[in-house]
Structure formats: C-alpha cells, structure tokens
C-alpha cells in the first residue's frame, strides 16, 4: 500500500513504528480469537474450543513464537474431551515456552497422575520455575558485556586499579557464565529431539523398525521420550527410565509443534 498522503519525511519513522508495534498488533488479534475459543470452553463446548485453539496455533504468525496460555487452554480443552495424552503434550508445550507457568505445571501433574505416568521435577525445572531462562540469558549477556567494556576501559584508558579490574573481570565472567548456563538448561535447546507418546494405547518398543521385531517393553501414553534416530515411519526413542527401542512415529508427537519445526528448519 502506498502512503501517498504521507510525506517521505515521515515515511521512515512510520514504517519503523509499524514494524515495532507488529507484535503488539498480533497479540491483540490473537487475543480476540482466543476469547471466542475460551467462551466455548467455559460454556462446556470443548470440541468447538479445541478446533478454534488448533486453528489459532497453526497460524503462520505463531511459527516463530507462540503463547503458553494458548497451549494451556488447548490442553484444558483436550483434557475435557478425555484426550489425556494429547493434553499432557499441550501442557508440556506451554511449559516449554514458559517453564515457570505454574497452572500448566499443576495440570500436567494432574493429567500424568491420571494416566499413571510419573514425572518428577528435575533440578533444572525447579530452577526454571523461579527464573525464566530468557531472563537468565539476556540479563547475563547484558551484565557480561558491561563487564567486558568496563574491563577494556580500565585496562586501556582508565586508571589501572586492581580492585576495579577484578570487579570487571568478575562481572564479565559471571554475566556470560549465567547466560551460557541459562542456554544450557533452557528446555527449548533440546526440544527438537523430544517427543511425547500421544496414542491411546501404549506403543510397544521394538528392537528393529518392524512390527514383527522383538519387544523390549512399552511406553505409557503421555511419556516424554527422546528421539535418537528416524527411519521412515519409525522412530528410535529412549525414555527417561532408560528403555530404548523403535516405535511407529504416528504414536508420538514432537514436543515442538510442526509449525515451529518448519520455522526452525528455515
């Protein structure tokens, strides 16, 4: 669209303003759509609500980023429909986006208890419940760079006072260390290889990718698994309890939604 009535003098700043406000506009548009789905869910129409949530979450605008609240609401709708394994996946996705999202954590625990799957909290999850990894990484990076710059100033241009130099070194190391640590424990870093069993029945772990292969156990619905290898329609997976084997890929779903996976790939 040509903004003919806007003088070229103002065109640049306005474009910048529109670009900067686009997340806000997107958020507002999504909130409107979510309200309709929420109303359906609150009035006891989980099927309708679920369809709406699925449509919103599949929209390309949410390829790079998404909303933990939307996934949480979708999980509630799935739970009301009796799709416990699918709802556990939605709650896990909500927690992937926001590890400190307490309602999602509680719902996940409830759903997993209902299914009979134990999911004890790791120390990383407990820590991330207190501080979001994004905060840890960004604050750490800012502090680290401030430390580095202070060090440069002190070493090159300023008074070479040992105390101040030591403080700057500490700030640089601690800041960047915190940033690296946040990245290490950020569940999104390894989410690409994680999946959740969503079939209603427990898929059997096979020694080779074939239905006739020897069984080495089964995975209850809702189990979080790590995909180690892929071979056509079969995934070689490992569960938290140490079980490994091949399962049909249709029985599990990646922790990252497909729209986000394609965005990562691009």
């Amino acid at each position, binding site marked *: 669209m040509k903004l003919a009535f806007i003088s070229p003098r103002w065109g640049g700043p306005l474009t910048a303003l529109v670009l900067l406000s686009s997340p806000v506009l997107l*958020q507002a548009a*999504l909130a409107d759509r979510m309200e309709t789905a929420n109303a359906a869910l609150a009035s006891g129409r989980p099927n309708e609500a679920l369809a709406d949530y699925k449509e919103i979450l599949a929209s390309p605008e949410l390829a790079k980023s998404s909303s933990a609240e939307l996934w949480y609401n979708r999980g509630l709708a799935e739970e009301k429909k009796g799709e416990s394994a699918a709802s556990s996946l939605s709650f896990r996705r909500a927690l992937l986006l926001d590890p400190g999202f307490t309602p999602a954590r509680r719902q996940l625990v409830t759903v997993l208890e209902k299914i009979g799957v134990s999911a004890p909290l790791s120390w990383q999850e407990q820590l991330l419940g207190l501080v979001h990894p994004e905060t840890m990484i960004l604050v750490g990076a800012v502090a680290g760079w401030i430390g580095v710059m202070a060090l440069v100033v002190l070493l090159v241009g300023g008074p070479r006072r040992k105390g101040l130099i030591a403080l700057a070194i500490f700030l640089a190391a601690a800041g960047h260390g915190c940033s690296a640590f946040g*990245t290490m424990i950020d569940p999104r870093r390894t989410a690409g290889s994680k999946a959740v069993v969503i079939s209603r029945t427990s898929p059997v772990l096979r020694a080779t990718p074939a239905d006739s292969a020897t069984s080495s156990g089964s995975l209850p619905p809702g189990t979080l698994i790590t995909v180690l290898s892929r071979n056509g329609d079969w995934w070689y997976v490992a569960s938290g309890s140490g079980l490994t084997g091949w399962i049909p890929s249709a029985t599990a779903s990646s922790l990252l939604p497909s729209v986000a996976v394609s965005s990562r790939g691009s």
Partner: protein
Amino acid sequence: MIRILAVFLLLGLTTQLMAADVSVSATLSRPEINSGDMAELQVKVTGAQQADVPQQVVVDGLQIRLTGQSTQVQMVNFKVSSSVIYSYIVMPLRTGSFTIPSVTVSADGQHFRTTPLSFTVLNESSAGGGATPTGAGFQPPASVSGSSQQLGRSMPRPEPDRIAFGEISCPKKTLYAGEMTPVEIRYYFDARYPVQIRGGVNFESEGILVERFLDPKEGREERDGVLYNVLTFRSLLSAVKPGSIDIAPAKLDTQIQMPGALPPGFDDPVFQQLLGGRAAFGQTRDLTVKTAPLHLEVLPLPKEGRPSSFAGAVGQFDIDAMVSNPHPDPGDPANLVVKIGGKGNFKGMGAPVLKDPVGWRTYPPTDKFDSSDDLSFTGVKSFDFTLLAQQPQHASPICQFSFFNPQNAKYVTLTTESLPLVALPGNESSGPTSANATASSSSTPNPSSTPSATPRDGDPLQRLTLRSWKTPMQRPEFLIASLSMFVATVTLAAILILRDLQARGGTAASRRKRKLAELLSRVQSGNEEAAAAYDAAIEYLELAAHPSDARNSVLGSLISRRDLLKYGTGGSVPLSGTERAKLLETLQTFSSI
C-alpha cells in the same frame, strides 16, 4: 502373661522378617463389576513391616481410597514371612473399562511399583441377571435397621468339656456396600490350662474389608461352671461386593498345655492338690481356635437419587463449617474448615464439594480425623479448604456433602451456609478493606482489574504473551546484538588506544623517526655550533644504527672530534661545509643500514 508371650513371639518373628526381601503386588477382588457395586484393591507388601502407600489412587471415573491395612504372617518350613496388605475400596463413578495404574509403594527406603490392572464397570442392565444376586431382593430400610438391633451370636453355647472356643458377633447381618459395622471376636480359654497365642486373628474373606484389630482385651467369664480367660478382639467390617457373603471362621493359632498321664507315684490326689490342679505333666498341643462362620447379606448402594456430590460416605453424618480467619489481608488465603461428624466409613469418604466458588481460587482440602472411639467408627473429620480471593469477596462459598444413610436407605445432601468472610485479591491491596467498601466495590467491578485476576485452575486464561520457540542463542537478533556488542567493545578499545597514542605522541617507532629527522636537520642546518652538531650526530648514530664494531668505531671518532671541538678550539663556530658534508655522508651510510 499371654500378652508378654505374644510380644516375645512377635519380636522373634520381626528379627527374622527384617532380613526378608521386599516384594509388592496388587490384586483386585473382581476385575469386572456392575455400576453401583464396589470392588476391593489389595496392595500386598511382603517382606516389610511397614510401607508408605498413597491414600488414594487417581483414576478418572473411579474413586479408589485406602481404607485400612492388615498383617499376614506365614511360616513355611520354619521360614517366617510377613505381608502387610493395604486395602482400597474401588467405587465406580461411571461405566467403562479402566486401567488402574501402578501404585508406588515405599518400603525399607526403596520404591516399588505394582503392575497396572484392568478393571471394567458394566452397566447393571447389560450385565445379566445373575451378576447381582441381591439385586432382586432389595431389602426395605426398616428390615435393615431392625436387624441391626440384635446382637447375633453365631456360636452355640460351649460344651462344658471344651478347653477353648471362639464366638463372633456382628450387630448387622444385612448391610450396604461400603457401610461399616463393628465386629467383635471373643476367644475363650479354659483358665486351668496355660495358653500361648501364636500370631494374630485370621479373619478375612473375599468381598469384605476388615480393619486392623485393636489390642485384645483380657477378661474372665464363667460358663457352665467353668472359668474361662477371654480375649476380646474388636474391629470394623465393611463389604465391598453386593450379594451373600459367607465369611470363614475367624481363627487364632494357640499352643495349650494339655493335661497328660501322670507318671507312677505322682497320681496321688494329694500331690495333685499341691500342684493346684494344674497340668504339671502335661503336653503342649497346637490348637487353632475358631469361631462359627458369619453370613452377611450385602445390598448395593441404590443408583436412584445418587447426588453428584456423593463421594462414598455411608453412615449418619452432620456438617458444620467455620472460617478460621474471616478477615485475611489482601492476597492472603482464607481457610474454610468443614467438619463432618457422626458415624460411618470415615476412611472411605471423599471431601465435601464447594459449590460454585466464583471469584475464589481453591485447592484440594487437607483432612484430619479425630476419632471419639477406639475403632474410629465415630468421630469428626475436618476438611480444611484454602481459599484465595480473585475478586473482592464478602462471604465464603457454600459447601455440600452427600452420604448414604443405611438406616432409611436414602441419600442425604448436607449444605453449609455461606459464612461472613471479607477477602480481597492481592493486586487490590490499595483498595478499601472494610466490609461495606468491599461490597460496594464488588457491586461495581472495575473492568481493568478483571483480566489481571488469576483464574482458578482449570479455567481458560484470557491474557496472552508471545514467547519464542528458540532460545536466545538460536535467534538471529540475539546473535546480531552480541556481535554488535563485540564490535562496539573492539571499537571502544581502538578509540581508547588511539587516544592514548595521541597523548603519548604516537608510537615508539614514529617518535624515533621524528627524533632522527630532527637530529639530522640539526646536523644539516648551518646555524648549529660545531660541538652541538657533533652532539646531534652522535645521538643520531646511537638511535639509527644497531650496535656493531663499525658503528662503535665511527661513534668513537665522532666523540673524539666533538670533545676536541668542545674542549679545544672551534667548538663555538659553525661547522665548515666540507666537514658537514662528510659528517652527513657518514650518518647516511649508517641510516641506510
């Protein structure tokens, strides 16, 4: 005496049991039941004296609650093994096929899991006529309560010559599934013969749950002129399966010193009198003392009129509620304590239900039971609800509790009244705190505060925050920002270094170069005195040429000439053109080196 012997016996058993391996298993009394019936889930822990098991097992559509535990001791080939059996009542809330998940058991510091069990709840109409024997014979309430007034003595009068016998009494012969009734088992032992008790009472049967027996009471009673020591065991019994149930006799293993034949010379009546009539030369005999079997008719809980808030309570109860802190600070939780008193199956009852707690965030209540008898048949169970106001509140939510009253065979729903409770959400701490002000603020809600209020668990969330699927390290904007910071740091360092150089007059090489040019120009200019020109030339040579024999030789001659000029004659006049040219030639030779 008997108690001491029993304690020693138990101690002996315990030491053997400590070394045993622990194993855990779960069994269902019936894998398939009709809706309205109940089943029993038993978790058996073998090889441990005590274990931690969950109070309830969560399965959608079923209510599974721990009701009690019992201990089983076995001795096979002198190897003693003990099992603790934890009993759960399984009450269906709807029909369908279910999987009862693994039950986690903690024993001896280790965790064990039972295998999942399949369980099916059939619709009564589709289950066939023979599944519920008592279905057609539903007893009217009057007959049920009437039978409970009689204390059934199922054991006939003891024969005078009997050394030991048992009696069982149960006040009700007809009861509803889940209903609890006291049961009393008495064992009579002829007071003339010493008795040792071996283990506990063995009283169990499929379809019933028996609570742990209390420590027996000892007494004496005379029957037909014979004095008996009486051990009285008391417990609670409940049935989980409708129908006719024949419960096997309650058994107690004992050892009794029986009178034996007296050796020759000791059969004198006077000698026997001296021994007090006791069996001095008796023989030890193992004896299992039994009661008569017990027959019960168990009726199913009626499906008609079952309230939605019914959660397994059977008995006679009343309800009371109180708010422990009616004026909490804004954002602080309030506690609504609901007390259920009366008599019935307190262990198997579920919590009361809060009705429409709009504007409250609620949590599952904690419960505490205060028994008023040693059997835990009567008492008060308190449920403590934590309430967090999400909008200004001036009254507590109401609470409903439903139970089945076996006296009149009807479901009863009790409802508490709404109690005064002034509570504000945490984000409105600056708002008014008085009851009147709260009421006025609640009548005109502030729309801006509604979205920020945290909804209850299970309610959809209205607000929305966008977050990335990638960590910052995987996002180009973060990498660009980091790169920019790196460039900025390098630029800053460069600027500072340049400023420093500027302040110092450039680098050492440039400073040297400048100095050489200055010295050379001094030599070249004709204004300098001869000695000063040689000084400049010497300094130039020292700076421009690396130390070497040739340089040192030339330097020596230049110094000699300077000294001659300085301390002799001609030092204060300028150099001649010839000498200057020669000097410059010498210097240029070395500068080119």
